[in-house]
């Protein structure tokens, strides 16, 4: 069984997993060609 401290850590980690950092969080803002993710059909190629 997890200790109280570890149970707290697990709960905080699970809460954080609901808003994972997005790759664009680590990139400068690009005003002209910003990332614009959108659901594309799976048969289209991922980024080469």
């Amino acid at each position: 069984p997890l200790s109280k401290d570890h149970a707290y850590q697990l709960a905080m980690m699970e809460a954080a997993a609901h808003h994972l950092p997005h790759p664009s969080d680590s990139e400068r803002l690009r005003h002209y060609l910003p990332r614009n993710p959108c659901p594309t059909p799976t048969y289209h190629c991922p980024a080469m």
Partner: protein
Amino acid sequence: MVTDPFGMVGLLTFIRAAETDANLVQLALGSDLTTLGLNLNSPENLYGTFQSPWADGPCRPQDIDFHVPSEYLTNLHIKDKLAPIKLSRYGEDLLFYLYYTHGGEVLQLAAAAELYNRDWRYHKDERVWITRGPGMEPSVKTNSYEMGMYYYFDCHRWCKVPKEFHLDYDKLEERPHLPASFHHN
């Protein structure tokens, strides 16, 4: 034999349990590490394009911040003065570049739609763009398929290559639809 978890029976119990519960497997039997999106045979270092511990693919060229003179960067204030992106004005080469470097983004779909307008068709199984060459009529044409010599775009050699195809019409993508809120600018 050792009857507690620290002998062969302990290991055997785990192996049998793992057959039913994949979640148990991840630690002890591990996973195929070549499926984590890293090219482990790459002659280049991986860290320079490592996107994130959560990403299952490397950075795309445009994701990597290179220190260019700030004059090269499109300043927020002239952005609206620049001509808006208009794919119908661009050559095929640029359209293919935008398609292959913006996977999962609106711009990929927009490039796909423009290629469709120019009589290219995307083969959903072969996952290549195909077009009829000038004067290349299909040798066989039915309601559901046609056969003959076509050009396809080889993105590894970055050129159009002639090739025989058997084209089932239902394998060709219809006109790609852009999401309503598409503002690529």
